[in-house]
């Protein structure tokens, strides 16, 4: 089963849940798709097995052939090209590597070459394989990194730590998932964001369930939302200053506390069961 853990906004505990689930499973793979700022490895502390570069294409110009016609400058919708007398400037970070300028150049002065846009580190922790993707700062998109990262998905068990938000990076991670675990905070903000990611899972046609995190006494708008929208609540984690402290130091709860080890083992079983049921429907 491939489980994506989502939250809509940052800071709800998505990474905390992902890394602890992965650690307690001790099999399959953990995939950190928050490629702008990956944090999972801080908790899992994997031993490094290998590193790969993720490359994209960039156009390179042969100025001997370029006659300053500016067809490329005008055609590029991202405005990644600029021409000043004697020089065609190409801005790699704005370029989306679509290939249009190279195709259009009447003088065939443009050629595409590889450039590095990010890295993927693959490591291990016991029987768990840990995969971390990191995007170079300033790049226009992290989607190619996530794509490459998820090529090694383990069909038996994969925990996919999704990026925050609801943009194309998140869509890319959900695409490969069998089931989505939505982590929600007990505030109005949390409920709002839960609604956002819930909508995403509906559009992408993925079964989903909720984990209520940092729960305090009193009204829980996220719980209400889940009940009103027939979203199964798989578990509830009360706010715990001990857990907050340990996590702020990037410590795994399942290693520091028997109570949490039990909790996450049960959660894992719940999630896998739900995912299996959903797959059969």
């Amino acid at each position, binding site marked *: 089963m491939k489980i994506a853990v989502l939250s809509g906004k940052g800071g709800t505990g998505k990474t905390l849940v992902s890394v602890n689930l992965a650690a307690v499973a001790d099999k399959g793979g953990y995939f950190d798709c928050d490629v702008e700022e990956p944090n999972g490895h801080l908790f899992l502390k994997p031993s490094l097995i290998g590193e790969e570069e993720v490359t994209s294409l960039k156009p390179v110009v042969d100025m001997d052939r370029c006659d300053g016609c500016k067809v490329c400058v005008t055609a590029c919708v991202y405005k990644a090209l600029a021409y000043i007398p004697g020089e065609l400037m190409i801005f790699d970070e704005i370029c989306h590597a679509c290939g249009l300028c190279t195709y259009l150049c009447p003088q065939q002065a443009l050629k595409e070459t590889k450039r590095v846009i990010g890295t993927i580190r693959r490591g291990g922790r016991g029987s768990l394989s840990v995969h971390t993707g990191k995007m170079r700062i300033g790049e226009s998109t992290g989607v190619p990194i996530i794509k490459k990262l998820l090529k090694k998905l383990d069909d038996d068990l994969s925990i996919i730590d999704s990026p925050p938000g609801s943009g194309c990076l998140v869509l890319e991670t959900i695409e490969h998932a069998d089931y989505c675990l939505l982590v929600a905070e007990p505030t109005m903000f949390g409920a709002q964001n839960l609604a956002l990611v819930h909508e995403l899972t509906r559009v992408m046609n993925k079964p989903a369930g909720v984990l209520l995190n940092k729960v305090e006494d009193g009204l829980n708008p996220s719980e209400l939302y889940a009940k009103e929208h027939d979203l199964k609540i798989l578990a509830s984690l009360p706010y715990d200053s001990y857990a*907050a402290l340990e996590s702020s130091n990037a410590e795994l709860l399942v290693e520091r506390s028997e109570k949490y080890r039990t909790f996450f083992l049960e959660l894992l079983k719940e999630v896998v069961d739900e995912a299996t049921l959903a797959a059969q429907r």
Partner: protein
Amino acid sequence: MKQLLLLSGKGGTGKTTVATCLIQLSQAKAYADCDVDAPNLHLVLGTFENHSTKPYYDLPKAVIDPDLCTECGLCHQVCRFDAITRNPYQVIPHLCEGCTYCAHVCPSEAITLEETVAGTIELHTRSDETFSTATLKMGSGTTGLLVTEVKKQIKDKAKFAILDGSPGIGCPVIASLTGVDLALMVAEPSLSGISDLQRVIQSARQLHVPACVIVNKSDVNEELTGRIRRYCNEEAIPFLGTIPYDKEAIAAINSGQSLIERGGPASEAIRAIHHKVMKELEAL
């Protein structure tokens, strides 16, 4: 118009809660939510009388006219983003990046680029207050353009404006920072939070926007709070205070009550911070 921007680097540090309190305490008449990926500010501001919206357009996306399509497959071959399906040949909008390569190669001119609404820019007003925000369609991300448009709507609408900024470190953050008088960083005491804080401070520096820092939920990890304080001292960044974790904050938000009215340790801490922030602004 003086502008105060709240930033956090990573999400979930309590930036929006602090922003709301500061809006109330300073009685700011103009405010904006630049955190368009997950706008939250409207949830705690109450109702407004007047609303106006306008569409926000991203790059035009390709559309294939099935009547003109001869199914030659060239568009599918050239598309680098896997955005064109075969049988039938259609563009998947959320994957299309608008590059126009397909339109250039299509031999039957079956592909056109059509304006795509990626979101809505909203303006809400009541008596002398102006609130600017935006919502995005699924699959679209915040851009510098969108943040710029949201900020434009409150320009000169009051003497003092508070902006709830975008998380992260990219283009939307840079657009949030442009032209702002003071950036207040709301940090949290965690390892991941600290590295995000450093990156966002760097962005503010490069744009010559003075920054100051507060730590929210400071008692979750006093050691890391201390580390942030020391970092600020070393870098000569004003450290304006800490806010303890306070479950009253959650109760207040959820019941639509102002945290300031409700009181409690977090409320007290924010009052003190408000005082210091206003002093920083006056000194500029």
